[in-house]
């Protein structure tokens, strides 16, 4: 690192280091996503009393690669009456907006390696990390909305409209449920939010931190609105197959469909990481101060718990009706999230 910055200047050395970090991060996340898909199929199979894919490799371990090969070699079908440019743009927006937030999450404490020195296990660390995540999430709506519009199909349009209405509605309660954590932490920097959760043998997490204000209500509202934001069961109205064939990606095939598919699972992964970082202490856990690398294990364990929760809910719950979904979001979740903000602020004010 020092050698590199002596050669070409500190600015460029940092840029190169972050470029490598971003690429490694993308590859790791995409691998995790591929195995989330496999885990989902196996766990769903277990819940429904069947086996799931288990033929490709030992126990079906190479199934994601077989799926990817299949997606690459399928025929690309473009509807004749589609709006061509927007039709190609939509999956790109979806996957870009899904992948961009992953660089800001701290997945471990400060560690040291030979030749490199001490460094933080995070790709980019900046002041407004949380706002950055929310901003990119709000841009992700375009992928779905434009895909529905440009396909020139009634099912796609209905799915796109439903998806964008749902994502706009639940974005509000998603953002408001995070305000409580921001209030007790006093910062938008995810690194310092995690570092403030240290103590109590690594278990002083924001969810039950009674020395500050426990954010259990914020956690539950965040979890529900995050599931709605990623269009997963029981909020998967945009792709309700009994009504809309496949919703906004009805007319997409081959690799473009795979991009939407990947974007959905990357979104699941990022909202799980955000829940872990803000409410469950990120990489904080027992023995992190003794052996820093174990923080990565704690972080991945917590994220895996949320991913399992997603799959579990999909195997258990039926789908909402659209008016139920809207009234639940606006008339229940949003007031509860606002109430959580007011109560947290009042307690903080009284303690001052």
């Amino acid at each position: 690192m020092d050698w590199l910055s002596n050669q070409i200047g500190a600015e460029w050395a940092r840029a190169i280091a972050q470029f490598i970090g971003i690429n490694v991060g993308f590859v790791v996340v995409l691998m995790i996503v591929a195995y989330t898909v496999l885990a989902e199929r196996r766990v769903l199979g277990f819940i429904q009393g069947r086996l799931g894919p288990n033929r490709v490799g030992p126990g079906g371990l190479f199934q994601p690669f077989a799926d990817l090969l299949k997606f690459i070699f399928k025929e690309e079908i473009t509807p004749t009456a589609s709006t061509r440019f927007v039709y190609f743009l939509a999956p790109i927006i979806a996957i870009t907006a899904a992948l961009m937030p992953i660089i800001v999450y701290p997945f471990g404490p400060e560690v040291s390696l030979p030749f490199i020195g001490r460094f933080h296990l995070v790709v980019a660390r900046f002041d407004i990390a949380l706002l950055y995540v929310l901003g990119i999430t709000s841009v992700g709506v375009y992928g779905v909305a434009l895909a529905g519009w440009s396909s020139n199909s009634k099912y796609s349009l209905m799915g796109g409209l439903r998806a964008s209405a749902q994502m706009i509605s639940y974005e509000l309660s998603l953002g408001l449920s995070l305000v409580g954590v921001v209030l007790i932490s006093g910062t938008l920097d995810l690194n310092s939010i995690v570092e403030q959760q240290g103590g109590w043998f690594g278990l002083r997490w924001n969810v039950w931190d009674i020395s500050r204000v426990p954010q259990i209500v914020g956690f539950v509202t965040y979890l529900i609105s995050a599931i709605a934001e990623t269009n997963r069961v029981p909020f998967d109205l945009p792709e309700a197959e009994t009504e809309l064939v496949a919703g906004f990606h009805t007319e997409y095939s081959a690799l473009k469909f795979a991009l939407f598919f990947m974007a959905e699972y990357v979104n699941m992964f990022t909202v799980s990481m955000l829940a872990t970082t803000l409410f469950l202490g990120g990489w904080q856990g027992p023995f992190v101060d003794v052996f820093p690398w174990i923080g990565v294990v704690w972080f991945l364990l917590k994220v895996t718990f949320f991913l399992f929760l997603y799959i579990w809910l999909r195997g258990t719950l039926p789908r909402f009706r659209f008016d139920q979904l809207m009234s639940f979001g606006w008339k229940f979740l949003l007031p509860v999230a606002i109430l959580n903000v007011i109560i947290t602020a009042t307690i903080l004010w009284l303690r001052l």
Partner: protein
Amino acid sequence: MLMVLLFILFGAMAVGCAVAMVAQRNPLYSAISLIGVFVSLACLYLTLQAPFIAAVQIIVYAGAIMVLVVFVIMLLNVDEEVRRPVRLHFLIPVSVFLAAVLVAEAAFILKLGSASARVEPIAPQTSDIGLTASIGAGLFTTYLLPFEVTSVLILMALVGAITLARQTRTPLLAVPGNVDAAPPVRDDDVVILPGDTAATGRAFAKSQIEHGEAAAPAARANEEGRQ
């Protein structure tokens, strides 16, 4: 050096998207170009050490306002704009002349002006103008009154929008609260009570049959019987 490269990249993106927004005939393409302008402006704010303003630019403009614009375009299914012949022909040379003057002015300042007027690239400073904490402190101390007055203004706009949207003479959907206290009587046999969606449907069907927009159910049953 890196900052200058980034500035050139995002500046070119902003200008290109702005030109595309005006030149496009399809309104959805214009909207997408406008989103591109907002995103590149946010990136420019980032290079100017104002991360909070950049994030707010993305969240408010690209994430909220433009989503509604795209939504409206999708719902209305707006067609491509038809090019009408230009009526005010003398405006074309005038605009070309004004643009030339503007470019000449900028070139003069950059190249021929005195050394003091020349714009040197400003080195990144460690100011706290664009940071979250300083903006929050400013909003809730020095600029509290303008901030609160603006929020009242937005509340007024909200109330106005709801008032405009609710002015319907005959309720299409008889949800509670959408119907006046006294149930409006449309006809002798169709009375709409608050919350009675079935009666609303009957009234709507009746009015459609009267205006010839739908076939009467008896006639349709006869046709099906014949088939």
